[in-house]
């Protein structure tokens, strides 16, 4: 990857390698100011993911901002039926990011809450102003892999990660966002990385928010199935777009003393030869 810092537009030569298909394309884009919505659980439990997002986006020549007033999209409250508590969190998100140019969210399920449920909540509130605000912000909201491929046109992020990696496709990324093979394309372009597909990749890991606690036994049985498929791949790392799934999968792997670990996609893409030499999480 070659980056030319021009006065305005950044010209990047991107090599896109998708399976057997080799293609080169030249993309011309403006250096963007990208606002990171880290999400509450990444902030508190998985700060490394946020750091990785910043690393990748800056490496691609963009400016990252972090608005410190941000907290939570309201997903847990909404999905659990506490809609009166979710509403102020939606309002807060809309307020915090109302003038953001591009919003990057390293969590498919939070993006899904914003895309699928904010319109419903706004509609139910009856407030025309809220409906307008939601409509205005939605085109600027991107999940991390969507941002890279759809907005920035990048498949090769210049990462180096010499390990065997499999990918768990989180339910929200697959069925709500419809990311398709975007995360896989990003992984296959990482130098040194060996990608192994996951059997039953579209099956839920069993996290499901409060489901994991309310129906802990069923949730654990689902996780056990998922982990069995992951261990069958012999991968060193299981990646995903959602740390919530990875907490479920990683927690089960850890309890089984498995050597396979979990990493958010951003953490793999952040890894370069010069930075950390592609060490495991």
């Amino acid at each position, binding site marked *: 990857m070659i980056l030319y810092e021009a006065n305005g537009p950044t010209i990047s030569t991107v090599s896109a390698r998708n399976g057997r298909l080799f293609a080169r394309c030249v993309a011309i884009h403006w250096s963007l100011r990208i606002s990171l919505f880290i999400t509450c659980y990444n902030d508190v439990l998985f700060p490394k993911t946020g750091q990785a997002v910043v690393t990748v986006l800056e490496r691609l020549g963009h400016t990252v901002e972090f608005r410190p007033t941000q907290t939570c999209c309201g997903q847990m409250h909404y999905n659990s039926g506490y809609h009166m508590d979710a509403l102020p969190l939606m309002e807060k998100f809309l307020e915090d990011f109302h003038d953001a140019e591009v919003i990057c969210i390293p969590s498919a399920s939070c993006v899904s809450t914003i895309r699928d449920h904010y319109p419903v909540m706004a509609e139910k509130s009856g407030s025309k102003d809220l409906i307008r605000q939601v409509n205005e912000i939605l085109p600027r909201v991107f999940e991390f892999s969507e941002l890279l491929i759809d907005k920035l046109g990048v498949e090769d992020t210049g990462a180096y990660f010499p390990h065997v990696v499999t990918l768990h496709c989180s339910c929200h990324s697959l069925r709500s966002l419809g990311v398709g093979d975007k995360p896989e394309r990003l992984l296959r372009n990482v130098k040194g990385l060996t990608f192994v597909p996951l059997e039953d990749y579209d099956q839920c890991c069993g996290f499901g928010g409060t489901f994991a606690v309310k129906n802990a036994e*069923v949730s654990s049985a689902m996780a056990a199935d998922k982990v069995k498929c992951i261990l069958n791949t012999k991968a060193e790392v299981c990646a995903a777009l959602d740390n919530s799934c990875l907490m479920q999968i990683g927690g089960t792997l850890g309890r089984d003393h498995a050597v396979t670990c979990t990493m958010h996609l951003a953490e793999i893409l952040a890894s370069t030869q010069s930075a950390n030499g592609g060490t495991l999480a």
Partner: protein
Amino acid sequence: MSIRVGEAAEAPSFAVASKELLKNDQLRRNVRNATGIIRGKRANVVGETPDWQQLRDAGHAIKEHTLRHLGDYLARFEENCIRAGGKVHWARDADEANAISIELIHRYTPDGKRAEVIKVKSMTTDEIGMNKALVTAGITPYETDLADLIVQLGDDKPSHIVVPALHRNRMEIRELFMRTMKLDELGTSPEDIAGAARVYLREKFLRVPIAISGANFAVAETGSVCVVESEGNGRMCVSLPRVLISVVGIEKIIPTFQDLEVFLQLLSRSATGERMNPYNSIWTGVVPGDGPREFHVILLDNGRTKVLADSASSETLDCIRCGACLNACPVYRQTGGHAYGSIYAGPIGAILTPQLQSMEHSTSLPYASSLCGACYEVCPVKINIPEILIHLREKIVDGQDHHGGMGTDFAEKAGMKVAAWAMSDAANLSTVRAAGRLAQIPFARNGVIHSLPGMLGQWTNTRDMPAIPAESFRQWWARRRQNVVPGGTK
């Protein structure tokens, strides 16, 4: 009023029931094997249908349109059915539908003969607990669908909408048939077992003069009723007896005969993974010289108008009972259908049962889902089941149901309140995080928590939990800003 869904009101909660079922390895293997096969077949035949999404769109639109004009379409159906020689009855609830059926059966049973009926597989008659009511009234019902027969002979409960005995494997069924049909020997192949059912039931088909059916579709334009099936037991029941009684949920109405072109395609591919199920029977009233001489339709409400009244979830009534959501559901595939405590299992059961009967009987069902969306993806009429599950959770939290006994437990409510406060302001979030750091000290080892008390212990029973790291993202960001040049890029 007695709105009930089978015996769901007496069933234990999903969490309690599923815990027991998860211990039954044989059952889980049977369920997993069966759902895996149907899923594969469905994927094949859906894949070869180029206009599948357009069919789904049409199916959803027709159903939603019908619900919007349900009163008009029901009146049309009634008028056209009567014109063709049928008789139409209306039942507000389970008891009324059963009472009408019993009265009709007694009326048409020849004097001095034992009252008997043959039955086509019907979720609706299961919903109203018809068999129990018939037996109480001295009437013997014979289930004729192979799976329903297995359930009936085994005094078992159905565990799937389309394949009610999917939790039983062939050896269990063989043993059951040998015992209840008093057979000295019976082969072990599925053909042998099906053959035993053929012999057992044929005598009844050719003799019993009254049949009970449900309906997959009732056509307003013509007054026709359609039953979709595979074995031929449906054809036997709707065309051989002198009297046919069809119990039809009011949501089974479709506007026109042409609309069948959409639903027949959607239903078979979704339900059994076949291009078309072996048999569809469509009949209208009474035809001289062919089929029953008396035809009665019982239009059943049993809570459906209540579902219709809530616009946020009324699309539940679009359901054509294909069972695809059960096969796709990773929760159902772990537990099987009995965990749902209702004849309607799986994702559709989790939204239908609590809406039909008063919610206090089934507050656990809307939570029996990880909201993975696999059900919505396969639903042939595009019912947004995850969204409706969330809506029902909201109703439970708000305690909107008038019957009381609602609401979630105190610990959850308190937790949600704390979380809401924490998220209302970044400073609060930092405070709660700091408190969490302190609280985890006794439990965290090398960044991992192996055991926690209380509700979170449900997590750590089987899974590790990451400890809260020393530095949050926002702390890292603040520290970093002090060390880098403005503008962000290094």
